[in-house]
């Protein structure tokens, strides 16, 4: 009798151990590709019945604040975090992230080198890219034709200004150019910093001295302000990605320079009134060897404090795999596959046919170099940002100065000299250059 009871107890223990689920908490942003990942995650749990997923979806800035607090204090609230290419090098260096290692079937070498290099610190991969993006020119072919111009595949800033002017018809509510004007390190600063790289400007010299008093920055900001005054929409200082997307989709913009992911939105016939008339080109340059495009990726990483890093890595391996791309293609169509992470996607004819902006996206991503982002040497990593903890603060403060210049409240020169002062002050307080 005793033996029977013992056996039953052991059986019950074994079965409870077999079915004990490990719950991993995933923090993510509310972007279309992430929502699709959440929708399709049932496929992952079906294959891994011992893992349960809990999702925390938040607005980007709130998510950043939350995961930063959690990872810095080793709170352990999250097992998988959605973070950007700005955080990965800083957090990796601090030891806040667990190193990722995948089996051979993951095919690490298939990751786009420019993206992979931004996620690697001291030869260790700290995050896997979920989707990558650069920026490009999107334009209205019909308006371009009406203006008697042809958009080259690799336009210059001078051509963009000429074309924007020719396409503008303010009385009809059509504006030649739509660019980000909303202040923020991820808003107007992303665009203007990328633009400044092609003008030869840089945030800091090799000794971390701010460079806003340079000729190159003066040319960049004056060009931006003049271009927007001539051919931009009214109230542009409040426009970010979504506002410009709405303007472009409703036929109010001739040219829009922004994230490559917008390609899928502007060519979607359900939402865009101009879907049939959209052309794409590389971000403009100024003949100095650098184009004005950025490089960004939303990535999945495991905080060092996670107690469930094995299950978390398993999930990341699935969500960033070729198998996942195929799953999205079968359920949602090839155009909805997360772009910009794997070379194999761009060798797939079905994807190329479904996404007319695919080749430009790949070319843009590959042309961005986070280690040598501009013409002159720099001591930092990052194309449209500087990967130092102070950048969120100074980026937004400088963004406010540039936004003020766009509204005409201050001149471009005043905005630059204020930016120089405030960045100098912050860097001095933070004791740069660090030994």
């Amino acid at each position, binding site marked *: 009798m005793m033996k029977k009871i013992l056996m039953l107890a052991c059986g019950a223990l074994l079965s409870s151990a077999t079915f004990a689920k490990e719950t991993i908490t995933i923090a993510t*942003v509310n972007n*279309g590709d992430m929502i699709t990942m*959440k929708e399709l995650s049932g496929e992952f749990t079906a294959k891994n019945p011992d893992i349960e997923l809990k999702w925390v979806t*938040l607005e980007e800035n*709130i998510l950043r604040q939350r995961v930063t607090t959690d990872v810095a*204090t080793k709170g*352990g609230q999250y097992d998988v975090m959605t973070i950007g290419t700005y955080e990965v090098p800083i957090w990796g260096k601090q030891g806040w992230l667990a190193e990722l290692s995948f089996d051979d079937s993951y095919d690490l070498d298939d990751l786009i080198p420019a993206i992979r290099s931004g996620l690697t610190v001291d030869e260790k991969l700290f995050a896997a890219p979920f989707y990558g993006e650069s920026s490009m020119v999107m334009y209205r072919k019909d308006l371009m034709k009406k203006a008697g111009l042809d958009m080259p595949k690799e336009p210059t800033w001078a051509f963009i200004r000429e074309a924007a002017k020719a396409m503008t018809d303010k009385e009809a509510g059509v504006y030649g150019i739509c660019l980000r004007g909303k202040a923020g390190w*991820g808003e107007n600063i992303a665009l203007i910093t990328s633009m400044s790289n092609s003008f030869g400007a840089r945030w800091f010299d090799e000794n971390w001295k701010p460079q806003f008093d340079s000729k190159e920055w003066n040319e960049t900001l004056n060009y931006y302000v003049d271009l927007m005054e001539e051919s931009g929409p009214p109230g542009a200082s409040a426009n970010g990605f979504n506002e410009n997307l709405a303007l472009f*989709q409703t036929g*109010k913009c001739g040219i829009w320079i922004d994230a490559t992911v917008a390609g899928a939105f502007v060519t979607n016939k359900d939402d865009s009134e101009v879907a049939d008339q959209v052309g794409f080109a590389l971000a403009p340059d100024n003949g100095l060897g650098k184009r004005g495009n950025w490089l960004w990726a939303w990535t999945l990483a495991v905080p060092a404090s996670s107690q469930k890093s094995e299950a978390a890595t398993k999930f990341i391996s699935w969500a960033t795999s070729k198998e996942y791309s195929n799953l999205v293609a079968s359920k949602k169509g090839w155009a909805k596959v997360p772009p910009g992470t794997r070379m194999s996607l761009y060798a797939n004819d079905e994807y190329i046919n479904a996404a007319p902006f695919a080749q430009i996206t790949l070319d843009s991503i590959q042309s961005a170099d986070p280690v040598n982002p501009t013409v002159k040497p720099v001591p930092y990593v990052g194309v449209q940002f500087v990967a130092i903890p102070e950048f969120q603060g100074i980026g937004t403060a400088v963004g406010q100065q540039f936004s003020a210049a766009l509204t005409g409240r201050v001149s471009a020169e005043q905005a630059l000299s204020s930016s120089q002062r405030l960045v100098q002050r912050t860097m001095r307080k933070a004791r740069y250059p660090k030994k």
Partner: protein
Amino acid sequence: MAVNSSNKSKIIYTFLAWTIGGLIFFPILWTLLTSFKTEAEAISASPSLFMFDWTLENYKEVLSRSPYFTHFWNSIVISIGSSLVGLLIAIPAAWSMAFVPTKRTKNLLMWMLSTKMLPPVGVLIPIYLLFRDFDLLDTKTGLVIVMTLINLPIMVWMLYTYFKEIPNEVLEASRMDGATIGDEIFYVLLPIALPGIASTLLLNVILSWNEAFWTLILSAANAAPLTAFIASYSSPEGLFYAKLSAASAMAVVPILILGWFSQKQLVRGLSFGAVK
């Protein structure tokens, strides 16, 4: 003549009151209207107030994508729980300050209020570490504790103000009749100060319901209230205003209804002792 001018001023005041009321209510009305629009209409440069294609699609999508009722329940537990726990501490505290003051009572009250002047982010890391060490992260208990502590100064202040209006003689009379401190508070003070206590409770339920710093930072998947539910519908790349408006409407409607039904009590309590 006097009747005429009184009528005129009545009309002016009524008009002013409606205008101010309309201005205050307009953002909520706009949110409600946007929640019934398509995403393209929601961000349109020439928006329409009523003449658009009404759709329930946003509500359908929000309900299918998020566990609304879990967030709703969490909000109920956190806001009502913290207000009740807060009252349990604030009533005796306010009683002692109002009826048995010392020479430092005023300073103590001012110090309590001064804690509200500190930006919450200033104590973020210590509180986060405490929560981590006591296993309170992402728990409703943790959020009830933090909400109670945040709103306690306001609760004590409000109750202190109401209690000060009650003549000490009434309490003295009960003491002469042999009432203990407990009897004095429960059977004499509370019935007299009920409107004040009710409005303190309601105001704190509203404050806790709307709190969106600590509730967002200290919760994740299990204890997240409606503030986290709203925050999940904002997106940097992609149109979201209509769905965000639907989520906001679903989050504010319960507290609006509560405010509507209890407005008499709330106004009575807030104006208690205002005219003297």
